[in-house]
Structure formats: C-alpha cells, structure tokens
C-alpha cells in the first residue's frame, strides 16, 4: 500500500522553501526550453505547493494509486508549475525538467496524461478542467472513496462558458469533495482581465452559483492553508478559493507584466531572478 511520501507538510517555513525551489525550477526549465508561460506559472506557485505538500495524499512511485487526491491544472499553460512540483515530489528525476517542450519529452508544452503519469487529464484548451474534476469527484463518491479533487483555474479562463456549466453541475450534485482555485492575477494575454472581459464580481458570481467562496491573499501561506482546511470542512456544496495573486510573483521584473505571460526568461534574466528568489 502506498503512503504519502512528501505530503502533509504543515511547516510554513518548509512550504516557503519548497515554493522557492519550485519557482527556481520553473524559471530553469523555461529558460532551457526558450519558450513557455512564465507569469501564470509563478502566480499560482504558493497555492499549488500548499495543496500538494500540505493537503494531498499521493504516491510518486504509484501515480495511479486509487486513494490519491486528484489535482487538475485547468489552466494548462502553467505546465511548468506542475512539472516543478512533480519533480520536487519525486515523480521523476529533477534533470527531466530540462526536456520541457523538447521532442519526445514527457513534459509536453501543456500537460499530457498519456506521456506523464501523475497528470490526471490533459489540459491546455482553457475552460475544461473543472468539468473533468466534477466527473472525478462524482466517480469517487460512487465508490465511497474519500479522496478530494483540486482544480486550479485562471481568472481569464473563467470567461469560458464551460466553467459556469461546471459551476452549476458541482452545486447541483452537491460535489463537496472538490476544491476549486481561481488564480486571480488580474491579467490575461491581451491585457488586464477587467479590460478584456470583466469577470467581477467574482466572489458573488461563484456564490450565486451555489459555491462556498473563500477570498485570500494567494501568496500568504497561512491564509492558503486556512482556506484549504476551510474548504475541506464545508459539506453539501463545492468550495472555491479566490486566490488574489500577482502574475510573475517572486521576480520583480516579471511581476504584473502582461508581456511576460508567454515569454521565457533569457539566461541573464534567469540568473537575476534566482538571486532575487534566494535573497527573499
């Protein structure tokens, strides 16, 4: 039987350390690849690290372990984030991250469940992850499996109609073994979310769709852990965490820069960034 190797870390300092490593590995693989999504990978680091290392049960040596908690990166362009976490957790050797986006690599430009066990479902076309998460959560309930399903969405991504179809479904079927996260970094490709296609009031929208909504500073580990605990305690309805974040978080010259959505760091930028993260 599988036991969780690294999960259930409650120590804030350790989680922050992991988050720092994950940020460096994201930048490292993006720099090596020469392309990919920097801003949206960095903004969701703290929430994703907390989910994986303090909440989820999983076994890197047995990625399909039945009792595992499930994680879906619905905003699939944040693939470097999930890869950095998986490397940190021991799903594959750290060197593998250097193959990101290269021919025959298990680390496809967007997550692929057929090439990389541990990825639950392939993503990359935005708006689809929450539906799959619902399906998994319903399937787990049918089997009386107590596992939970986590799903990270982008704030731009929730402009997709399918997200709101899925939001209705989760409330209608009282899917309380799901925890959604909106990485509310305020930016999408063409500019600020509120300018491209306003999604406010986000909190009220989810609440009116029948969700328990928790607003937090998505870079404050204490708040993140408290929110994850709260979501677990809510019964009879799904929960969503609105994680207010900064796109490009951790690297001053990437922060809040719309142009760093889909641009990889140069070698020079990478070295500067690592210094900043290490000094933090």
């Amino acid at each position, binding site marked *: 039987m599988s036991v969780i190797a690294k999960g259930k870390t409650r120590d804030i300092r350790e989680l922050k350390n992991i988050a720092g490593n994950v940020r460096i590995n994201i930048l490292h693989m993006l720099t090596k690849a020469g392309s990919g999504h920097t801003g949206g990978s960095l903004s969701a680091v703290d929430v994703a690290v907390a989910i994986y290392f303090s909440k989820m049960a999983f076994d890197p040596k047995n990625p399909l372990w039945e009792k595992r908690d499930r994680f879906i990166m619905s905003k699939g362009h944040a693939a470097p984030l999930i890869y950095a976490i998986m490397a940190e957790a021991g799903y594959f050797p750290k060197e593998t991250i250097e193959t990101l986006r290269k021919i025959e690599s298990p680390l496809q430009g967007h997550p692929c469940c*057929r090439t990389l066990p541990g990825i639950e479902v392939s993503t990359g*076309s935005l708006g689809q992850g929450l539906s*799959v998460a619902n*399906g998994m959560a319903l399937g787990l309930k*049918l089997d009386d499996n107590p596992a939970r399903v986590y799903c990270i969405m982008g704030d731009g991504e929730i402009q997709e109609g399918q997200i709101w179809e899925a939001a209705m479904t989760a409330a209608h079927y009282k899917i309380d073994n799901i925890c959604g996260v909106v990485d509310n970094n305020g930016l999408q490709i063409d500019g600020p979310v509120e300018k491209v296609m306003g999604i406010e009031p986000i909190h009220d929208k989810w609440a009116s769709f029948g969700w328990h909504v928790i607003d937090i500073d998505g870079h404050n580990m204490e708040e993140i852990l408290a929110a994850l605990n709260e979501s677990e305690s809510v019964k009879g309805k799904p929960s969503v965490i609105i994680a207010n974040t900064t796109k490009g978080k951790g690297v001053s010259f990437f922060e809040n820069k719309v142009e760093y959505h889909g641009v990889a760091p140069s070698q020079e930028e990478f070295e500067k960034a690592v210094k900043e993260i290490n000094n933090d």
Partner: protein
Amino acid sequence: MTETLHNPVLPGPGQDTEKKLKATRDAYGEALLELGKKRSDIVALDADLSGSTKTCKFAKAFPDRFFNMGIAEQDMIGTAAGLALTGKVPFASTFAVFETGRAWDQIRLTVCYSNTNVKLVATHGGITVGEDGASHQALEDIALMRALPNMNVIVPADAAETTSVINAIADYKGPVYVRLGRAKIPYVMPDDYKFTLGKAFVFHIGKDANIIAAGIMVDIAKKAAEILSKEGIDTGVINMSTIKPLDEETVLSAAGSSGFIVTAEEHSIIGGLGGAVCELLSERCPVRVKRVGMKDIFGCSGSPDELLKYHGITVENLIKEVKTSLKK
C-alpha cells in the same frame, strides 16, 4: 409527427411491417439498461434529451448512476471524462449535432488526447431526423469524429446490430463514437450476426459493382443490389458499420473484385464513409468511387422519407448511380 420511414426503407407492401421495425435509439436504451443491471461501473450522462436518446430507461433504473447535465454538452463531455478517469464506463448521449459539434474541442482534449474510456452514443444522426430541419440534422458528425486520433466510429445498420455494438463497446477500453437514428427502420442483419469492432459484414462481393454502406443505407443498398443483380449487374453489398478503424481488407477485396465502388451514407459525402473509402483506395487500389450521400449541403424540414427522396438517397437513385457510373 411520423417516426417511421415509409419509403424506401420500409419493407415492401404486404410484409409484416410493425414487427420488423425498430429505431436504433430504442435498441440503445434497452441495451444500456441491461448493461446497467449487469455492471455497476456503467454510468450514463445526458444533456436534457434523455427521453429522445432513450437513456431515460437507465436513468429510471439507476438514478445514482445517471447524471443529467442540463443543456450543457461541453460540461457533459468533461464530466464523462472525469468519471472514466475514476474507472467508470460513462455513456454520454445527446443529439449527434450537439454531441460532436458543440463539444468537439472537449472530445478532442479530454476524451481522445487523454484517451479516456468514454462512450459517446449520439442519436438523431442524418436527415431522417426529419421535421426539425437542418439545425438538428447531423451530416458532418462522422467527419468530425473520424478526424480525431484514438476515436472509433460506429454506425449500426439496425436495432439488433445496435444492441451488439453497445455490448461490444462496453467491453472495449477507449473512446468510441456511435451514431444512431431517430426513425424506426427495418432489420437487415442476419439473426446470428454479432458485431466486431473494425470488421465489416459482407452480404456479397459483386463482380461488377460493390456498394459499401453504413446505417440506414445498408437496407437501401441491399434492395438496390437485388434489383441490379436481377438485371445482370452483379452488385455486392457491404455493411461498413465500423467506419473507423476501417476494415481495409474488405474494402480492398471489394475494389479488386469489381474495380468500381459505390459508397452510401446518410452523411455528407465529404469526410464520412465515402471519404474514408476514397482515402484508402486512392493509396492502395485506385479504382473509381461514386459517393452517394448529402452533396455538401444542409438538410431541411420534411418527413424522413420525403427528405431521403428529395436528396436522392433512394433505391432508385442508387441503381441509377451504379448504372451511369458503369457506363463511363
């Protein structure tokens, strides 16, 4: 509103019609219910059309394993993929237009690319949808599904074959698209026939012409071939119920025998069965192919049999097509 095809699909005058007619969707509803009784891993989803797709039977018997997703086809496909990822065998149904068109990107990403064990069983394929008109008549669904890697595409020819197909795909692991119809149609397959994925059923291989058909066209093709053969034109008929993966050996042997192939489908002549046959033959055995089907146009309202006539999907027209093509 008539749900029966009177002409030309219906058996000739004097035959015992009612007993010999059944819609493939009705067979689906019953087969799914039976599967549900046998297997607890079978689940079903629908998008507010369970009465029409006949998943209502399963829903009534197994309310805990049935998920009505409301009018939200994209969410239905994603949810089905999620259920499959926890080991369930989801059957997701709605009309063929909405199943394949509205949710194509969802099918592409979370079913085919993710290779999840989802069964897409769509009803109301083709123009025999009838009076609802073009918005509801799927004529491109096979093309849409056929283009996706990992997808299997099946069009049963009658109710009995549908039952056999539903049982077969429940045991198969991977994405499948099954196209069913609304109208009551005759039984065409032999009593002892059992469907095998990827295997065509050969009624006869002709020396002069061979009609490769799917769905309701199998019955029409059989009737046309009978008349043609009486007139001395040895015409074969093949039920190509699996359009993907195509039974290449059977197509090649038919082409080799007659040097001339007719394809017949209740679908656009672009990208469906005709397209699949042409793709194969142009590479492996270039012979002339006449594609009978919808000629790159939308359907319209009318009764199913009126529409078949209007669009030249009839026994008479099939005979004419074979004869004129043979003269060329």
